[in-house]
């Protein structure tokens, strides 16, 4: 019987770490991983609340989120590989031809 806020605090912490990852890592791969982390922490929050409210909806939602995450990663990695084939790098600092 733990207070909800323990879980929420944890998920928030993880979420922010994920955010930091997106902002601070320069390899697109790492950025994707960080995004995954963000989504995961959100999932954790959802599951927590599902349990608090004794409701299934949130768990279903988590299921969808996981699906979406997978899809996004798939597309993202595909793009990344495609770009890597030309640029030989996954570093997003090197992808700044469009600016201004």
């Amino acid at each position, binding site marked *: 019987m733990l207070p909800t806020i323990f879980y929420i605090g944890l998920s928030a912490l993880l979420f922010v770490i994920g955010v930091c990852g*997106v902002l601070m890592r320069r390899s697109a791969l790492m950025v994707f991983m960080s995004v995954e982390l963000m989504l995961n922490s959100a999932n954790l929050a959802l599951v927590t609340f599902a349990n608090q409210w004794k409701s299934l909806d949130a768990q279903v939602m988590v299921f969808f989120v996981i699906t979406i995450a997978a899809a996004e990663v798939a597309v993202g990695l595909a793009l990344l590989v495609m770009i890597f084939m030309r640029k030989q790098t996954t570093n997003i600092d090197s*992808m700044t*031809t469009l600016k201004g």
Partner: protein
Amino acid sequence: MTQLAWLLVLIPAFPLAGFLLNAFFLRGERATGIVASLSIVASFVTTLVAVTNLAATPEEARYISAHLWDWLAIGKVNVSVGLWFDPLTAVMTLLITGVGALIHIYSISYMHGDSRPHRYFAYLNLFVFAMLILVMSDNLFLLFLGWEGVGLCSFLLIGHYFERDSVAPGIVPSEASAKAFVANRVGDAGLLLAMMAIVSNFGTLSFFGADGNSGFISRLTDASFITVDLGLFGSIGLVSGIAMLMILGVAGKSAQLPLYTWLPDAMAGPTPVSALIHAATMVTAGVYLIVRMHVAFDLAPDAAGVVTVIGAATALIGATAAITQFDIKRVLAYSTISQLGFMVAAAGMGAYTAAIFHLLTHGLFKALLFLGSGAIIHGMHDIQDMRRMGGLRTHMPTVYRVYLIGALALAGIFPLAGFWSKDEILVHAWYGAQNVNVTVMLIFASWLTAFYMGRQMALTFAGSTRDHDVHPHEQLGTMKWPLYILAVASALGGIINLPGIHWLTDWLSPVLHHEAELFTWSMGIFAAIVVISAGAIGYLGYRLYSGELLTQIKAGEEDPAHYYLGDIWKGFEMGWGLDYVYQRLLVRPYRTFSQFLSDVFDRQAIDGILVEGSAGLVGKVSQAASRAQNGNVRTYALVFLIGVVIIVGYVVIGA
């Protein structure tokens, strides 16, 4: 309208008709001249008829009025186009049409061989028309039309030789004409303000109204106590304010201080124009205005005082300047300024009759002098420099005689017209107004008048011809008759207001309500002293310049007096340098200023800083912002996050 009213309408109608004919239909030189002259003669005759009819009307309501149509009827501005014919108007009209007619006739042969005679005569007719409107209008608004109309005509006639780059003595006609118009415009601004003040306070611009005493003039007395607050400049009585504003107009039109500088340059026009416009009629409009508005000046002693001082000062300045001139017409021009000063001073001192009297006589003999000088110039093949004349007495005897009469009249020698009128002014200054300073100034001015006329006679007619490559001849044609008539008039013109007879005073009394002062012996003695001294000085002037000095004067050289008086003389010659001052202090700075405004201030300050500047500022911001768009997605995410933090922060604190 009554037949009399129609008669009134005819007076200006003739010149107008003449103008239209000349402007649109006639082209031949003779035809135009004759038509123009006939129209003025007809107008003169009509005027005589009108005057006789006027004399028949009862003393207490002695006026004829003609209401033609409503000009403006907006809110408080109700102005009609209407004519007003009372004794004052009558004398002015007689002068204008009479002298005008003579000068038209004179012009026929004077302008012989001119390239644009039809234009010349058309303008001349138009001028007479405008001048008649000026003096005959029954309200200030219509008067202003005439006022500016004569200004326009003077612009046109001064610029008659507009294609010449310079006429003697080194004046550019186009510049002179523009100068005259703008200078007058300054005065007109004052008159305009006066009109608006009158409308705002009295709701009408009509002098006397339909029934003769419903105009604003009759209401001035009630308004005499009203004062206007001028903020920083203290406050001023309404009536004297109006009067002051009018003085500005007078100074412009009648070439008084500080606006007289245009008149000498106006001599760029043909000589008959100088005679008609710049001596006999137009320049006297200011005096007419003061006399017409005399109630206001009676109620505003401070304004009247200003008028007096301006007049006296101008009289003196004009006289001193006239002494030094070598151009035969410039002498007369400055003398005109000076004589106008006499009139204005007289009007300022309340001697309205005297002012009008002098106006009339001056109109006669100054016209005579100008026409005479015109004849001389004509005979000298357009030479105006007196240093190249001399000995003309033998070459043109007729001109010599009439010119002598005119000169004596102007110098105020007994018993010619000038004596009586000028003398009346002086007497009034001494006995009536008892204003010593002004009297002294005026007397001094009249001495100088005598002196420069003597000088001019000497330089022009005395001795033998100095410039041997000109062959003066006298062939007057139609110029003869006007000269004779004017000579007679200026000899006998004094009769109309002799002491003891004073027809003019009686005639004008319905307007001015003046009783003639009764003549005392002391006045006679005073007058005698003045006239004798003047005569002596005039003879002195003649002696000096016809004697040994005469041989020293050569074309293009300074006057011997310059040797003694030096720069003072030079200053006199430049009309006390006022023109120079204006050039330096007004005209050139204005040019530079406008260049600065148009090339620098408008382009760079207003457009560059206010308009383009603000636009440029946005542009700068824009570039900065688009540099922040550095193309790196991490930065995008960071900005994103900043947004989130701010929003979440707000709701967390706010909710």
